[in-house]
């Protein structure tokens, strides 16, 4: 027998109750496990229910008549060993220990004779959980044994060159869709005009870049084309300021051949190119 005395009630401050200030060196007598296999076995439990079920099964005990005293004692011994082996002991093991200790203490307490013993067997809930857990463990074992795709069977595939025969279909358009798209485009245009006043203040520098960019693709721009009436007065002012700024920085030239003829904007390079021809 180890020092883990099962008769010592530990239900008050449970986690502390297990730390006895001294390590448990003796293994419980009834373990019958080779020492080197012990760690492996302890690690293999998937949780406190698994451990509890193992303890019950090992002694060929019936879950329904769960002998709470010896099982609690053995459970505590295992938990102590897990601690000693510095296995990562989940808090869940301690929760179970607390539950076992609580059941044990309730069973030790004398019950008022009036109480219905069947209804209030303190073990009942644990027994139910053990039964349910045992069924699920059985289900898990079935899964392990059933043929698994990628382990036991594999999906069969054959080659084909049929992909080469896939035809490319072009999108279909209905006439009504086209008419709808047209009215949407127009509606969009109207919406834009409507919202012009709310447009953000346009920056002169940005407009300068845009005019220069325009002059990249067009040798000459009509002065009038630089102004976007849709931008409203503010936009026209910004464009005008941008042109003045560009002239000042000698990036563009404003040309008018005759009085009242169309005013054109060209970039400076263009003028030199023109003058050489």
């Amino acid at each position: 027998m180890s020092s883990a005395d099962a008769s010592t009630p530990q239900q008050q401050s449970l986690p502390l109750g297990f730390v006895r200030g001294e390590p448990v060196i003796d293994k419980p007598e009834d373990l019958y496990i080779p020492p080197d296999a012990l760690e492996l076995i302890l690690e293999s439990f998937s949780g406190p229910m698994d451990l509890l079920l193992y303890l019950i099964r090992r002694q060929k005990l019936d879950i329904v008549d769960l002998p709470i005293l010896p099982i609690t004692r053995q459970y505590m011994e295992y938990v102590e060993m897990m601690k000693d082996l510095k296995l990562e002991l989940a808090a869940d093991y301690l929760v179970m220990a607390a539950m076992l200790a609580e059941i044990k203490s309730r069973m030790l307490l004398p019950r008022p004779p009036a109480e219905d013993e069947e209804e209030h067997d303190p073990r009942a809930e644990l027994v139910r959980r053990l039964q349910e857990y045992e069924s699920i463990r059985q289900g898990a074992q079935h899964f392990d044994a059933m043929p698994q795709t990628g382990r036991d069977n594999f999906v069969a595939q054959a080659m084909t060159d049929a992909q080469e025969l896939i035809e490319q279909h072009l999108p279909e358009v209905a006439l009504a869709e086209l008419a709808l798209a047209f009215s949407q485009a127009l509606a969009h245009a109207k919406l834009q005009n409507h919202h012009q006043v709310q447009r953000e203040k346009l920056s002169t520098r940005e407009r300068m870049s845009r005019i220069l960019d325009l002059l990249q693709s067009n040798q000459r721009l009509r002065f009038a084309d630089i102004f976007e009436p849709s931008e409203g007065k503010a936009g026209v002012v910004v464009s005008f300021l941008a042109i003045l700024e560009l002239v000042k920085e000698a990036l563009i030239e404003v040309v008018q051949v005759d009085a009242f003829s169309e005013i054109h904007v060209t970039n400076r390079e263009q003028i030199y190119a023109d003058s050489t021809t």
Partner: protein
Amino acid sequence: MQTPQLKQAIEALLFVAEQPLTETQLFEHFSEESISRKQLKEVLSELQSDYQERGVQLTLVASGYRFQTRAELGGIISRLWQEKPPRYSQALLETLALIAYRQPITRGDIEEIRGVSVSSNIMKTLQERGWIKVVGHREVPGRPQLYATTNEFLDYFSLQDLSELPAIPEAPEKVSPKGAAVQTTAETATNTE
């Protein structure tokens, strides 16, 4: 379309499709050839018996028909690849079993029965493999997610539906007053699907 030709075509289709094909998918595939459902069923059943004793078999799984290798050849075939197929931990299999046998189920239910907190890794692995999905919420405070298994789960185990799962004992009746409360709320689960 003549049956021998249809049989060849269905056989070829099942061997090149990336996914299992359902009877309906096959039926629609041959809409131009106007085949009958009866003809299709006959061809599928003929193919199944043709391949009965072969290295690959025509199997009906949850997502449809697919050709797959005989389970007993697993060892010889897996030599083709260096990597060993993954072995799933006891904890993962128990979690999967709970979801499969007791669905729809919340993470809290799983933790209660297994007596340990369910690691997020396990839930992530199960979801990444496409074996489980959230099918709704239980209408209790916190509205915990309800998990259920998917067709991919059934496909993985070559099953057509959940009724083909090996039987395990029914969940025992809850006894404690607290347990009774849980039972009640379980029945008010909402399904978002």
